[in-house]
């Protein structure tokens, strides 16, 4: 017993320091602090601080997406010795929420998890620098910009079209002379001096998602010697009849020109689209500084046009690209108005424009109409803006000539497109309003009086019928005065009639037959119908039998 107590005491004493040690070791490691996620393009980094001493401390992280029930180890972030880890290899879905947690480890001991609240990678992502490839001309630089991120970038795959790029360019000699421009990915910077070194840097921007990227490294390039042939300038596009007229300016004479077109969207997507430019039909090797081509060449959309000069041997660089938006060029035809004068006001009808045969479908834009009218003698114009095509201008002077012209305007604040004015139409207003008013009043009273008249006539007819053609019906409550049924029947029965059939006999050989109808309706009816049907036979029979009987009687009497 004592020995047992002694051993227990020994164990306790010996075990105490171990227990203390164990307790001290069970004291958790401190979890990492200031944990943040940094995403630039497709590079996903996790950064943290740790107050633990460096020796043998590692860090591991897990992640979880809404579809998963458990935490999964984050590849690339297991047993990291530093304070940063890269988990880009996971190929996360950038638009799905994700949760992360990280802890410190040392041997068998771990710190509690430090959780990073759930976030959507796309929202945290920052735009990296775009890649730039330069090609110099004499007075321009072609800037080929590749969007940020790699070619198979998951992060920006859906926003490539939305990037806008701003370029800061300056002459290498003086950094003061800076210029900032917004360019397309396949864009060019113009108005530069030849034989100069220019340096530039580019940054990308996603305005919609409020993201601004970082600048690319600085690239420098030398512009070439000035080309003997300058490029055409001041390109303009006009519409005439059913064709486009492309005009430009050129300093030298006796040159041939060619013009090309490109769909506008090619400029917004990456790559060198020099093979996508196509010749404009009717503008190959023209000698004049203009060319005409039918509107049919371009279906609805936006395009870029460019012109190049050539003297047979050499060619100039391409001119500045001119944007052509076919929708902006649509010609709105003027409406057709017709007028009618009604008393001292004018009733105006606005009709659809006369369509020429060439237009297959006219664009039915939402239109409002601007109507200008004035008195023929004076010049004071009044303007009305109307959406309806059928309206009245009231309160005008009677017996005056008024003239009207109208045009169609597209109903939009930003777009100031309108047609030319229609033909001028003049009309004289009618004298006074008395006759019209009387006619209207007369018609109204007539309309009102017809039902009244019908009602009055009906009443009269009823009266006449009552007086001259009374009905034979007795008052309905008269049967209360009579108690006896037979008297009632005698006086009042309307449905049943007392019928007496009487045969007037001329010779004594026939008997008088008297029929009496019974009171019961059905029998009566049957009886009377029988008699009516067989009347001839019955009476004949009767006569015969009657005559027979009478003969018998006579015979008997004689005997």
């Amino acid at each position, binding site marked *: 017993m004592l020995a047992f107590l002694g051993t227990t005491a020994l164990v306790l004493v010996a075990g105490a320091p171990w227990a203390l040690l164990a307790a001290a070791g069970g004291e958790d490691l401190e979890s990492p602090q200031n944990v943040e996620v940094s995403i630039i393009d497709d590079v996903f980094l996790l950064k943290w601080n740790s107050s633990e001493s460096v020796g043998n401390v590692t860090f591991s992280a897990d992640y979880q997406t809404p579809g998963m029930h458990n935490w999964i180890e984050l590849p690339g972030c297991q047993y990291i010795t530093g304070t940063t880890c890269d988990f880009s290899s996971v190929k996360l*879905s950038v*638009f*799905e929420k994700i949760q992360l947690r990280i802890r410190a480890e040392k041997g068998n001991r771990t710190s509690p998890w430090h959780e990073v609240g759930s976030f*959507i990678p*796309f*929202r945290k992502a920052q735009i990296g620098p775009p890649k730039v490839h330069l090609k110099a001309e004499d007075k321009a630089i072609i800037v080929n910009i590749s969007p940020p991120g790699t070619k198979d970038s998951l992060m920006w*795959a*859906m*926003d*490539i*079209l*939305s990037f806008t790029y701003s370029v800061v360019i300056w002459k290498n000699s003086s950094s003061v002379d800076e210029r900032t421009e917004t360019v397309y990915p396949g864009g060019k910077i113009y108005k530069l001096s030849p034989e100069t070194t220019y340096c530039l840097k580019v940054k990308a921007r996603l*305005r*919609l998602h*409020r993201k601004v990227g970082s600048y690319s490294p600085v690239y420098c390039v030398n512009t070439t010697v000035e080309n003997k042939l300058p490029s055409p300038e001041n390109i303009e596009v006009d519409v005439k009849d059913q064709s486009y007229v492309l005009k430009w300016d050129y300093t030298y004479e006796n040159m041939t020109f060619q013009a090309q077109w490109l*769909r*506008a*969207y090619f400029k*917004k*997507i990456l790559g060198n689209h020099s093979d996508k430019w196509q010749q404009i039909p009717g503008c190959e090797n023209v000698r004049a500084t203009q060319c005409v081509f039918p509107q049919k060449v371009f*279906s*609805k*959309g*936006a395009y870029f046009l460019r012109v190049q000069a050539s003297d047979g041997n050499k060619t100039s660089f391409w001119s500045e690209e001119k944007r052509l938006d076919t*929708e902006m060029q649509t010609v709105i035809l003027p409406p057709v108005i017709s007028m009618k004068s009604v008393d001292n006001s004018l009733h105006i009808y606005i009709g659809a424009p006369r369509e020429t045969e060439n237009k297959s479908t006219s*664009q039915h*834009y*939402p239109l409002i109409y601007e109507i200008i009218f004035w008195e023929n003698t004076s010049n004071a114009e009044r303007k009305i803006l109307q959406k309806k095509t059928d309206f009245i201008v009231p309160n005008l002077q009677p017996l005056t000539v008024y003239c009207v012209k109208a045009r169609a305007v*597209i*109903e*939009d604040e930003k*777009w100031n497109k309108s047609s030319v004015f229609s033909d001028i139409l003049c009309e004289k207003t009618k004298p006074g309003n008395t006759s019209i008013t009387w006619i209207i009043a007369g018609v109204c009273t007539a309309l009102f009086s017809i039902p009244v008249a019908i009602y009055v006539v009906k009443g009269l007819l009823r009266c006449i019928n009552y007086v001259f053609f009374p009905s034979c019906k007795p008052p309905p409550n008269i049967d209360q005065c009579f108690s006896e049924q037979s008297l009632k029947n005698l006086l009042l029965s309307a449905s049943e009639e007392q019928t007496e059939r009487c045969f007037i006999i001329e010779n004594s050989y026939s008997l008088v037959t008297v029929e009496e109808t019974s009171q019961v309706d059905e029998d009566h009816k049957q009886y009377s119908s029988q008699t009516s049907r067989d009347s001839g036979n019955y009476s004949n029979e009767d006569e015969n039998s009657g005559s027979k009987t009478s003969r018998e009687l006579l015979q008997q009497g004689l005997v």
Partner: protein
Amino acid sequence: MTTGCILQIALLLCFSITALSRSFNLLQFQQRSTNLECQRLMMKLSGTPESCLNNRTNFEVPKEIEQPRQFQKEDAVLVIHDMLLQIFEIFGKNLSHTGWNETIIENLRSELSDQIDRLKAILDENTEEENPTWENSTTMLWHLRNYYTRIVQYLNAKSYSSCAWTVVWTEIYRNFSFISTLTDYLQN
């Protein structure tokens, strides 16, 4: 004429007057004509045998798009802009196995690009002012983008085969009917 008949005529008149008096702004008009033009162009793309449609996958269209409740005009512009953007990107992928006419594809992408520009101009105006409902609007956007990610992953997995493109064509054509519904919310 019975009273029932008169009542029906009166109701019909009321409805038609209401329908005709709805104001019609330019953006809605342009969006409608884009929708019609894109559908017309898609119909011109040659179809492949119907046996391909056995491989149809449910790409899980977000509910807010399939059955939209009341949409604010700004949200409608945001969603339609993104949908057109994604459709533009999808038609820019590898179409070599489809045998579709390149000019029609170019016309289609051109039409989409122009309308995207118009919508972007309006969106850029709106982002000038700080919008407190931006959070809610973007949640819808993430669901929409996950949906299009699924479509692109499907195309990748099937190596852009002709059959896979038929399935995607059907899905995109269906998208345009969703866009048409959303276009109604572009009213001021």
